[in-house]
């Protein structure tokens, strides 16, 4: 249970990072389109992704054992 929750969070974090990064302003020529993000607050999503991926470690440690619940 602990293992796959952590794995899920890491994967989720990475996905969020990818979505955030690709959602932000695209690389390419200096044009009006490339100066705006594809969707608003995309960088926020990227940052959340990084935090989620890292806090997987928190979850991994802090998950209470099934035994003494």
């Amino acid at each position, binding site marked *: 249970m602990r293992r796959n929750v952590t794995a899920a969070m890491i994967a989720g974090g990475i996905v969020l990072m990818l979505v955030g990064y690709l959602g932000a302003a695209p690389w390419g020529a200096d044009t009006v389109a490339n100066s705006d993000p594809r969707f608003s607050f995309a*960088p926020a999503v990227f940052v959340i992704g990084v935090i989620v991926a890292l806090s997987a470690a928190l979850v991994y440690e802090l998950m209470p054992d099934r035994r003494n619940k």
Partner: protein
Amino acid sequence: MATQIDTHPTALPQQVGQLTTGWKLAMGASFLLLVVGIVAFIRELSTGMIATGMRNVGTMGGASWGLYITMVVYFIGVSFAGITIAALVRIFNLRQLRPIARIAELLTVVFLLMGSLAIIVDLGQPVRGVINLFRYARPQSPFFGTFSLVIAGYLAASLIYLYLGGRRDAAKMAEYPSRLQRFHRWWAAGYSDTPEEQARHRKTSFWLAVTIIPLLVIATSTLGFVFGLQVGRPGWYGTLQAPAFVTLAGVSGTGLIIVLAVIVRRMVHDKTALGIDVFAWLGKFLLALVIVYLYFMTVELLTLLYSTPEVEKQLSDALLFGQYAWIYWGSVALLAIPAIGLMWQALTRRWNVGWLVAAGIAVNLAAIGKRFLIVVPSQTHGTLLPYEVGSYSPSWVEYGVVLGLFGLGALMIGAFVKAFPPLPLGDREEVTADA
């Protein structure tokens, strides 16, 4: 749950919770600095950044990035070294360095917060700055790395590492009845030092350390790229910026860890807590980094002097002989002298803590000087079009705000060491009922 211990009031270890007069004095002074900083910042907000000494590059002959950006790079540099050492301790299992791990992590978190605040005070539109970065930040800009990886990602990583690393001691502290008991219990979050928990902690801290090191190198390099990628600014444009940033960050960070470690050692009145071997290791680590950085400086100097185009010549003249010469040679001296001192101690294996503190402070001053020399001269003396040479000197507002940031940092560190033991409550000091 841990066995109930009797309620006889015993002093918490490592002076936690005891507000000694020395501590109160330091905190009072820091608070004063913070007030100065806030007053200066309000002045800057109301009249605009004309209150600072910064002016536009080019026709206005000023520098648009000054003391604030210098301090941003310095703070983030120091924070980089902290967590790196903590991570190295974990990865290479340097048992004798375990005592300073938490100090290093603490340093990272505090200086990272000071660094991000320094960026915000430098913005023309501070409030809109934070919102727009989350909303519109563009990956093409080197700031994206600084904003997302350095501030957000790296801050999260160090907080998590500090929190998890401290749960075991928090559990011990939670046994003491004190005003902080609920805080300690929250921090321990049910840690009961069972073998599985210990194994699980070892695994997480290992994997965390393994991810933190590359994250840090990338983050600080992007900070280096903020300057290194600018073709339009002679003196900035160069491949050496990123590695030089990382090295000087290590130098300044290690220096401050030594200083903080000595303060903590005196604070807990226990010379044995941090053995001389810890300082020896730090001293050697610092020496290695300083030598690497001096090597980088010589490389940079030779490239500048050999057969430079006009603009770089104008810049190097200003750096070596002109307006900024005293900072340049001052910084070099503040790096070289400690290096010699450390070399002497390393060879004779007689490490003197007082000398190490002096070296620590010296390299940090050199770091601030060198950061200033990277940021400012390229603006006042590095215009590709032949504008007149400019000048920049920080105004009281800038000094006030920077002092305020230091005050804030000191307050945070002071508060932490009184709420939580800076040194690990390891097996050596068995916690018994009657302490």
